[in-house]
């Protein structure tokens, strides 16, 4: 059996048995939902429905209802898209990259982080669809035998690469997540007493048996999917960044974008995981599985990726001057000192300064501080995309065309609505799905569980 150094902090606190793990995860699913769940679900549902209403109004009327104008043809739609895709990067990073690196602390958080990923990518995917204005012709982005004229879709365009990248990412993440869920659904199935629940979980668990051969395949499939998902995570946000990196607009002409966007995505994704898990562990009494050490590990990731993002901001600024291209230099000067200075400096404060506070051990182990920083980071990352997109185009080459972007209430409604829908999905997940990867946590119980780890009579030496 695998042994761990004695000084390494245990990942599972307290004296848990295999059965306790099952109990702790299945109890919240089998019990009645607490009143707080209904309240939160109600709020999220109302906000989500308001967003759906705004989307329907937009589709019925046209994208003129957004606050766009002839200079700023892209604003909140693409900002929100990149923001959500970025958030949707943590889950697969946690479950795939950390699986390849054999990081055991991922096991307590990967299930919910991946659920978060999938819901975030759903939200992201909505924006390119609705920004077409005519949602019903969305399938024109696919390379269909062409009945629509003489042209195929343009395979040289990063926007088309996006279509492939996002749909591959969403579907592969979904499959990866579900393959891991099957054995855990079987656990709930075998415990279920109510006939409806039994039936539902029987369908969801696909008749899983737990045979040795099946586990053998399960482990290989998880490993290979992790191996495939790892470059996928990096490629997806690189491709999203190509939308801006390959353009010739000053400010959208930066080759540093792919690594900078990927780091930013991991940064914001982990922040969202922190926001959700800090609440969830408390509400579902999972403190023994997701504790200070896990939070600290995630804070270290936030600190590292935050530093990469900060370095990228400053490099980008330096190169705009060093390039000697006056339009490029102006675009960046305008970001920092022009009419959108407040967005630029919000971004700088939230994304560059706040993660540096994680160098202090006391702060990165403080749950309240982590919670606040996680929200600050996500606000900062929204501003980052807003700064890149809106400030780069609001002043183009002819001063007569200079303009400002003011969001309409539909802009705001659609954005807030996606946050509502996201929480609707996440709350449903927390209510009906095993939020911890039961089968994985059980495998590390003996090597990283507090009561086994440093027990004097441990193992066969």
């Amino acid at each position, binding site marked *: 059996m695998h042994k761990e150094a004695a000084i390494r902090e245990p990942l599972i606190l307290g004296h848990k048995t295999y059965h306790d793990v*099952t109990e702790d995860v299945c109890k919240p699913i089998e019990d009645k939902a607490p009143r707080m769940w209904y309240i939160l679900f109600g709020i999220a549902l109302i906000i989500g429905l308001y967003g759906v209403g705004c989307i329907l109004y937009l589709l019925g009327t046209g994208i003129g209802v957004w606050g766009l104008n002839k200079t700023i043809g892209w604003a909140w739609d693409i900002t929100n898209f990149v923001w959500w895709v970025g958030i949707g990067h943590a889950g697969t990073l946690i479950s795939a990259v950390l699986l390849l690196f054999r990081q055991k602390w991922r096991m307590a958080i990967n299930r919910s982080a991946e659920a978060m990923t999938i819901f975030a990518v759903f939200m992201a995917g909505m924006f390119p669809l609705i920004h077409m204005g005519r949602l019903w012709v969305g399938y024109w982005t696919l390379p269909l035998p062409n009945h629509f004229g003489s042209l195929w879709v343009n395979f040289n365009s990063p926007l*088309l690469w996006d279509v492939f990248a996002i749909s591959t990412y969403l579907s592969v993440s979904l499959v990866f997540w579900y393959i891991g869920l099957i054995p855990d659904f079987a656990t709930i*199935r*075998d415990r279920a007493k109510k006939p409806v629940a039994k039936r539902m979980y029987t369908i969801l668990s696909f008749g899983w048996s737990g045979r*040795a051969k099946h586990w053998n395949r399960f482990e290989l*499939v998880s490993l290979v999917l992790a191996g495939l998902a790892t470059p996928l995570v990096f490629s997806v946000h690189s491709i999203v960044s190509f939308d801006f990196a390959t353009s010739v607009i000053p400010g959208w002409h930066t080759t540093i974008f792919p690594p900078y966007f990927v780091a930013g995505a991991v940064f914001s994704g982990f922040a969202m995981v922190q926001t959700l898990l800090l609440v969830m562990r408390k509400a579902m009494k999972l403190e023994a599985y997701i504790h200070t050490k896990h939070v600290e590990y995630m804070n270290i990731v936030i600190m590292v990726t935050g530093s990469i993002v900060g370095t990228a901001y400053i490099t980008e600024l330096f190169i705009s001057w060093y390039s000697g291209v006056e339009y490029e230099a102006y675009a960046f000067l305008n970001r920092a000192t022009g009419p959108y200075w407040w967005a630029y400096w919000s971004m700088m404060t939230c994304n560059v300064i706040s993660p540096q506070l994680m160098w202090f051990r006391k702060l990165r182990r403080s749950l309240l501080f982590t919670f606040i920083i996680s929200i600050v980071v996500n606000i900062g990352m929204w501003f980052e995309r807003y700064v890149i997109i809106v400030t780069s185009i609001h002043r183009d080459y002819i001063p007569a065309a200079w303009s400002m972007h003011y969001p309409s209430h539909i802009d705001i409604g659609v954005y807030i609505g996606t946050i509502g829908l996201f929480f609707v999905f996440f709350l449903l997940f927390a209510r009906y799905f095993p939020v911890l990867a039961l089968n994985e946590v059980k*495998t590390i119980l003996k090597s990283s569980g507090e009561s086994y780890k440093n027990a004097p009579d441990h193992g066969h030496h």
Partner: protein
Amino acid sequence: MAERVMYAMYDDDEVLKDGAKKLVAKGVKINEVFSPFPIHGIDPIIGVKNTRLGIMAFIYGITGTMLATLGMRYFMVVDWPMNIGGKPNFTYLDNMLAFIPITFEFTVLCAAHGMAITYLLRNKTLPGIPAQNPDPRTTDDKFVIEVRASENAQFSSEELENMLKDTGLIELDQKEMK
């Protein structure tokens, strides 16, 4: 003909593994092991071969690479070459760099979904199939060894029973199966 199947239940994976080793050393053929999570190191003991799904994933992936290459060559070079921004589209090689992202994505798409579908089919785990484990506790905290009398014809039922009881089990269940 009805067949006698014995299910020995354990409450610890290490005990099951030691027990399985003992049984196999005595020449007992273990038909199956059921567990709530993968028991590392059980496969060679009970003679489960490593899966070849990895090879399948590779084949699906290569298929994806080829389809993407052929597809984009047809769309962008053969059927309707477009002059985009003055960049030439006359041969596949001229334009290949722009095709790499989609080639990669499509490779991953085919490999991941192909392997996942093959995995579910090979396991015979699909929506609507009833639970196949012998005891509902095997998805919680119990571990089961399944031994079939027909595969161990050299031993009598009593001998098998005694050998199983010697391995630290907590319960022994017997069933007649068709």
